[in-house]
Structure formats: C-alpha cells, structure tokens
C-alpha cells in the first residue's frame, strides 16, 4: 500500500472499544482480537460488561467495553491505561476517557452526540467541545453517517444499516494498526451463511471503514505492531477462561478414564462453563441444569458414587449453598470437582466484577473438620491446566477439590499454547472389582479408599454422612474411631502435598522483596515485577497454584527474601492463611477490593515504596 512508507512501529498497544450494550463492542473486540492473534502478536483482553441487567440505551449504566492489549513481546495483562479509546457514544466516552494514557488517541462517533444522546448520558455540555478532552488526540467521525453512505442501496432497513457501524469502526482500526481484514470477512461468511444480505452489508462496512482510514488519512500516521518473534514454537488458539475450564474439565475426566457429569445451576460469571459443556454431548458429557446449587452438587455426588466424575460449577453465593454437601463429599470420600468462579461480594455484591474473597470460605468454610484441597488458576490458558490438575487430585485422592477462578479470568482471553497430546498427564482410575476382603474404607498407601461402583457384583456397600468404622465401614459411634477417621481424612489431604511441585520463583532465588500471589493477579504482579527487574531491582515473583494444602519447600523460598508482600483482591485472605501456617514470616498484605483487577503500574508503585523502606 502507498502508506507503507509512513508505518510507525509500536511494540505495545492497548485499545479499548466502548459503546452502548447495543453497539456490539464485544463483537468488535473479539474480531480485532482474533485477527491480532493470527497476526502473531501476544495479547490479552478483558471485556467489561455493564451491571447484569440491561440498562436503557445511551445511559452510563448501559456502557459496555472491551479492552485488548497486544504486543510484540510477552504480556500478562489486558494492559493498564489504554493508548487508544474508541467511543461510540457520549456515555461511553465520559465514563472511560479518564483511564486513557496522556496524549492517547480518542476516536469518537460524532453521529451519536445529539442533544438527546448527551441527556441520556447525564451531560450538561458536549465533552467534544467543552475542553474535557484536552491533552488527548481527538479524532471525530460521524460513523453513523459514514456507514449509511457505505451501505447505500442495500435492502436493509435503517436500523439494520446502523447496526453495521461497529464493522465500519473495526475497519478503521484494522487500517490504523495494519491488520488484514480477510479473517473477519471469512468469519462473516460463516456467521451469516443463512443471511447473505448481512454478510454483504457488514463486509461493505468493514471495507469502507478500512478504505476510509486509507484515503482520508484521519490519523497522522499509521501503526504496526510486529509479531512476537520469540513466541515459543507450537500451535496456538485464542481462549477465554471459562471455555478453557470447560475443556480442561472434560480433558481431566478423560485423562482419568472417566466420563464427566456436570450438575450445575446458572450463576454469573460461571454460567458459560455449563453452556460450553452442554455442547460437548458427543464426548459423553452429561450436563444437568438443576433446580438450585444444592441439587447441582448433590447430583454430582450421586454421579460420582455411580462411577462418573462428578463436577459442579458456580460462583461465591452458590458455593455458600453447597457448603453442607461439601461435607458429605468429604466424609463419603468421593471424587468431586467444584469450580468457583469468584465475583465481588459479600452476598450478591457486584456480580459482574472481579474479587478473590472466597479463599477462606473455600479452605475453611465447613462444619466439622472437613479438609478440601484448593487449586486456583492464574489466567485463561492456565485454567485448562488447573482444571486437569483438579481432576487429578479429586480422583487420585478420592476427595472433593475446589477450583478457584474469577470474573477476570472467566471472561478474559489470551493465546493458549496448546498442549502436546502425549505430554498431558494421565491418571487412570481403577475401580475396585475384587470382593476379596473388600470394605468401603480399605485404603492404599496414600490413605485413599477404593472406589467400588454400583453394578459391580458382590461389592454392595453403604456410605453416608454418619461417621463410619475405619475398618468395617459400618456406622460407628466409637470415640476412638472418630478421632482415627478425622485424622485419616486430614492426613490424606496432607498427602496431596507430596504430589505437587514446589512452585518456581520468577526471578532470583533471593533478594529484597518477594511478591507472593495467587489467582488472577498473576499477570499484573508478574508485569510489575519484571519491569522492576529490568530496572535492576532485587524483586522476585512467586505464584501459588495450590493454595491448600501448600506445596513443600515454601519456607526455603520465603527465608531468602527481606520482605514478602501478598497483593490480593480481598482484605488479605491468603496472607492470613500463610501466617497461620508459617508464622515465622511476616506476610504483608496489599489489598484492593474495587471489583477491578490490579493495575501493574500501581502495583509497581507500591513495591517500589517497600524497596525504598528497605534501602
């Protein structure tokens, strides 16, 4: 193209698309993401939905956003402050411009800035004129009008025509960041195979937007973000956290030679997992949408008793409802994977916002001594591995396992380097079939009881919530037996530690500051730490996948740092648990509970402060 000559090279770009829920920003974002992934950039995205319920068009409450961070080097977060903001209406503009980098680009659709639009956004004056946006590079374009012109002569009604404006916008951005439009054109073909007129209209809009950028040269210059060269060789796929979980759970069951059974009840942000798994029928995945969370977990427990791998998926309030049944799974020693995609609480709280405040509930929230291993995923791609790991622990130790994710991972996407099939762990279950000396609580060297499923001749047995005799498996009220069983159940979970690796420190093995984190704060912490490392600071990052029980060897690591800080999206829950286990160390809490992920640069500010205190 004629414009190749003035291509400006950028290594790292963060774009945020914002508009009304009806403007199709999520779609625009995902298309831009998929294309960018194919171009070979590393990327991370994060959609920001409005509060659960549909708000009136044009209002601030109705604003929907999608942020993508792409780069020619490894990245771990959807980015902090965006460098480009695409705003489709006043409400979107006003609620987002503050996050933009100083001097950043703002592209606005002036077609949506009528008096009425301004009122809907509760604006007295027009931010495009009242100087609100000074300090930014404002690009105004009546995208509505442009789209109408582009689609002149189509058979579509005006409403449908305007629906295409997001593709017009997408076209402009493709041009600006020199991405190919073909992938999206193909996608449109597939998507609307049955509606050719839509394929045509949207394709037209997309091309028009692209050419528009090309011809009018709205932007001084145009950018390219070279592909990530040092990306490890392999096959990649762009994945969303909840989808990775769904695939991982089915894979995990498969690797245990079991058929999965999902008993669930819809709840934001976990519902997708049920939705994805409902599509996998040809993998013999049974999904039951039950009447509530209790039925969800109880059907899963029943299914495990019957010989499938019982799984249940939910979010905080749902986990709360499953509390009693979790105890039943513990005492009956059946495998069960319980996925909790955390959201901001307490109670209903902020259902679409991110928080990590269910950790203590997951570890300690049950009546009686009812230990349960807890695994937490760090990012969309990691969700697959963690799901497999949860299935491994559940089946290898005949125990319920809680798998923690959160809103940020659930809806975030990133390129996932697909595992080599033959490198996947295998942990096949062998059911008990031999009646010789069988009792339900016969245990192996790891203290794990055997699993005998109904239908097996001569292994009829009864399990349940009452304490059982450690030998015969009959109901027992014997005092000593109770203590034996409580200790056996505790020791069995303790034994899980022997099967999990000591996590690797990212950075030097010793230094001034250890940043210790878990869950979705992985990316922000890692980014912050690596920036500091580039600055030559003695900071390392340790991420915990197994948050209960803890891996061996942590004392070793902790002892090599002057200070240990634990940043969490709660008021210090992991720090509390760590303190109760390793009281010789001082775990400094750094918390944020705003329903938003950490921003790497803010974390860095905090870590730098600590370092100053040290020196």
């Amino acid at each position, binding site marked *: 193209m004629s414009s190749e000559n003035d291509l400006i090279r950028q290594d790292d770009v963060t774009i945020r698309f914002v508009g009304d829920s009806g403007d199709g920003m999520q779609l625009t974002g995902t298309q831009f993401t998929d294309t960018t992934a194919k171009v070979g950039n590393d990327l991370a995205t994060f959609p920001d939905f409005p509060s659960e319920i549909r708000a009136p068009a044009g209002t601030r409450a109705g604003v929907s956003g999608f942020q993508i961070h792409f780069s020619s080097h490894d990245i771990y977060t959807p980015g902090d402050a965006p460098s480009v903001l695409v705003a489709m209406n006043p409400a979107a503009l006003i609620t987002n411009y503050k996050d933009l980098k100083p001097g950043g680009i703002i592209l606005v659709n002036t077609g949506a800035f009528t008096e009425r639009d301004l009122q809907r956004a509760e604006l007295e004056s027009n931010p495009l004129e009242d100087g609100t946006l000074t300090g930014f590079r404002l690009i105004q374009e009546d995208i509505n009008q442009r789209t109408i012109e582009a689609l002149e002569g189509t058979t579509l009604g005006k409403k449908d025509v305007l629906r295409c404006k997001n593709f017009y916008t997408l076209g402009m951005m493709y041009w600006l960041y020199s991405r190919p439009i073909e992938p999206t054109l193909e996608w449109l073909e597939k998507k609307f195979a049955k509606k050719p007129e839509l394929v045509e209209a949207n394709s037209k809009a997309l091309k028009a937007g692209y050419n528009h950028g090309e011809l009018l040269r709205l932007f001084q210059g145009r950018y390219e973000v070279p592909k990530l060269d040092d990306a490890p060789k392999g096959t990649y796929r762009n994945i969303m956290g909840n989808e990775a979980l769904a695939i991982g759970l089915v894979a995990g069951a498969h690797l245990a030679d079991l058929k999965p059974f999902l008993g669930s009840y819809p709840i934001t942000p976990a519902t997708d997992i049920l939705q994805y798994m409902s599509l996998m029928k040809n993998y013999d*995945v049974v999904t039951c949408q039950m009447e509530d969370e209790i039925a969800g977990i109880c059907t899963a427990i029943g299914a495990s008793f019957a010989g499938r791998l019982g799984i249940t998926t939910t979010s905080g309030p749902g986990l709360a409802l499953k509390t009693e049944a979790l105890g039943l799974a513990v005492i009956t020693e059946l495998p069960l994977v319980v996925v909790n995609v955390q959201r901001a609480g307490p109670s209903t709280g902020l259902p679409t916002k991110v928080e990590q405040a269910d950790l203590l509930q997951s570890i300690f929230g049950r009546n009686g001594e009812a230990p349960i291993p807890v695994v937490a995923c760090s990012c969309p791609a990691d969700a697959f591995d963690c799901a497999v790991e949860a299935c491994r622990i559940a089946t290898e130790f005949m125990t319920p396992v809680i798998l923690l994710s959160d809103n940020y991972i659930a809806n975030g996407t990133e390129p996932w380097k*697909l595992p080599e099939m033959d490198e996947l762990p295998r942990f096949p279950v062998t059911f008990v079939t031999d009646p010789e000396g069988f009792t339900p609580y016969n245990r192996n060297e790891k203290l794990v009881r055997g699993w005998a499923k109904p239908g097996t001749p001569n292994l009829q047995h009864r399990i349940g919530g009452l304490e059982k005799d450690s030998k015969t498996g009959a109901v027992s009220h014997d005092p000593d037996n109770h203590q034996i069983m409580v200790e056996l159940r505790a020791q069995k979970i303790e034994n899980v530690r022997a099967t999990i690796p000591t996590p690797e420190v990212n950075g030097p093995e010793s230094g001034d500051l250890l940043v210790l984190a878990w869950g979705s704060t992985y990316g922000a912490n890692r980014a912050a730490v690596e920036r500091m490392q580039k600055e030559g600071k003695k900071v390392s990052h340790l991420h915990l996948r197994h948050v209960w029980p803890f891996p061996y060897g942590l004392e070793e690591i902790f002892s090599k740092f002057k200070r240990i800080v634990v940043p969490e999206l709660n008021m210090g829950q992991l720090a509390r648990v760590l303190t109760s286990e390793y009281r010789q160390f001082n775990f400094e809490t750094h918390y944020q509970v705003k329903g938003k992920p950490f921003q790497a640069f803010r974390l860095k500010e905090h870590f730098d402060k600590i370092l100053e205190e040290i020196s």
Partner: protein
Amino acid sequence: MSEVQQLKAKDFKSDQEVRWCPGCGDYSIISGVQNTLASIGVPKENVVTVSGIGCSSRFPYYMDTYGFHGIHGRANAIATGVKVANPDLDVWVITGDGDGLSIGGNHMIHSLRRNVNLKIILFNNEIYGLTKGQYSPTSPRGLKTKTSPFGSVDAPFNPIQLALGAGATFVARTMDVRPAHMKEVLLAAAQHKGAAFVEVWQNCVIFNDGAYKSWTDKAVRDEKIVDINAGQPMIFGKDKDKGLIMDGCNISVGKAEEASTWQPAGECAGTAFIMSQLDRREDMPRPFGVFRQVEQPTLDELVKGQIDEVTAQKGVGDLKDLIYTRDAWVVD
C-alpha cells in the same frame, strides 16, 4: 453382572442390625421393598437405595444393595445424579415426611416434574421421628408436639395432591399395616417407567402413635378406607356393600353396584386430584392404591438419547479435536 439366580427377600437384608423402635411401621415397609425387589428379579448389585436423614432414612444400611445415606432433604437430588449417570441402575429413594416434603420439598417436586426414573417411597408418620417429635409438613393443624405446645398453626400438605400438582406420572398410597396391599403398590411402582411417588402411612409408635388409628384400626378399616384399583369398581365396607360414585368433581357413597370404576390413566390428572381431595372430608373413606399412572419420557432416557443422537451426528468426540480447533494457528 452375576448370573441372575432367583433371589429371596432375605437376600436383600444386610448384616447390620435393624435399629428402629420395636413396633415401628418402618419394619413392614422394608420387608415390602425387599419382597418387591425379589419378585422383580433384579440383581442386588444393580439396586441403589438413596435416602436423606430421618429414622426412615436409615433404610439403606439394612439393605444388602448399594446404598447412600445422604444429607437431610437431598435424597432425590443425589438419586437423580446416580440414575442419570448410570440409567441401568434400579434406584430407590427412601425419605420421610420431613426429609422429603419439608427441607427436601423442592428436589421432590422437581424430580417428579422431570420424571426421573426413580422409585420414591415417602414414609409418612406425620412427625419428625429422629429428632424426637416435632410437627412435620403433614401433621394436622392443631397437633400438639414439642415445637407446637399449643397446637401447630400450619396447614399440612396432602402428599398425593402435591405430587399431582408437580406433574408426577405415578402417584400411589399404601400403609404399613397392610403388607399385601403394600406389595401390590410397590410392585406397580417398580414396574412403572418413570418417577414413581408412593406415600406410605407409617406409624411412629414413640412420637405420634395412632396418628392413623381412626382409619387403619382393623375395627374401622373396612369402612374408613377404600381401595382404588385400575379398571375396578371402587367398593368398600365390611361386607363390600358400599361403593364410591364419581360424578365429575362430586364423589359420593352409594351401593356397591353403583360404584364407579377407577381409572388412574388418561390425559387429565383431574380425576386423581379430585380423589385426593377425599381426605378433606370426614364423612368419606380414604382412598388407597394407584391414584395416577401415565407413561411419559424419563429424564434419564432423554439425556442419554440426546447424547447418543449428537454422537451419531458428530461421531464420538476425540479429545484432541476439543483442544485443537479450527481457529488454531501455528508458530514455527
């Protein structure tokens, strides 16, 4: 599966000593179930009994089958998981009026609506036995119990009526003191394809003794209860001389010859519902037998069917395809 030798009722007894109070109605129910299992000739290992919590819910421990003593009120949910996970199993839910209608009421109505192929035996003693005598959702209003010292103010459920309201495909009632009748009803339930709801009047000798006396005592029984059998006239009375006459929503007592014949099947559950309303009338005998029986697809077969169908279309899924999708790209 062990070669199917003809089993006897006693073969279904476990080695555990039965721990119900002497005289408890539960004894006759468990032998009723054991007899039924023997007569349908199912191998022990294919039978699973699932219960909640309550005196009645200790049932599984006394059966030499697979058994799951669950938590309070969740038997239907656990059993649904068992049945859907492996439809070849013969799954029996054992529950009480508190377990199945109070805390477990929701799972009960939903498993009936979904028509999960479960045999659900509700031990109705109109009291919480295990916790030593508090009123239950089937206790009559005014009943004085430990938690209702001045008489209960709650109106009770009519279990038959509730099950019909939930859209149950099989609804029946029998009692502990009529083993023969119980066996007939349990057999019908066992043979029904779908959720079979069986209310069993069960006497709690300790905390609610004689709750059913005025209907079940040998002395009055013939006059106070009526057997409703499919295709049979509804006759009762010591000398089998009385008959129930159903005329639409009105039921009256007449001579045996005038008795209407009972029909538990048919599109509309209205007849069964009306029959269940007899309980509200002191001047009428209480009906026992199968109130309703219709065949409809079961949840477990529909779930399996859908899996088979989709698998037939898409072919058995291969894990690799799940991970390596078309939109993947290669970096090399």
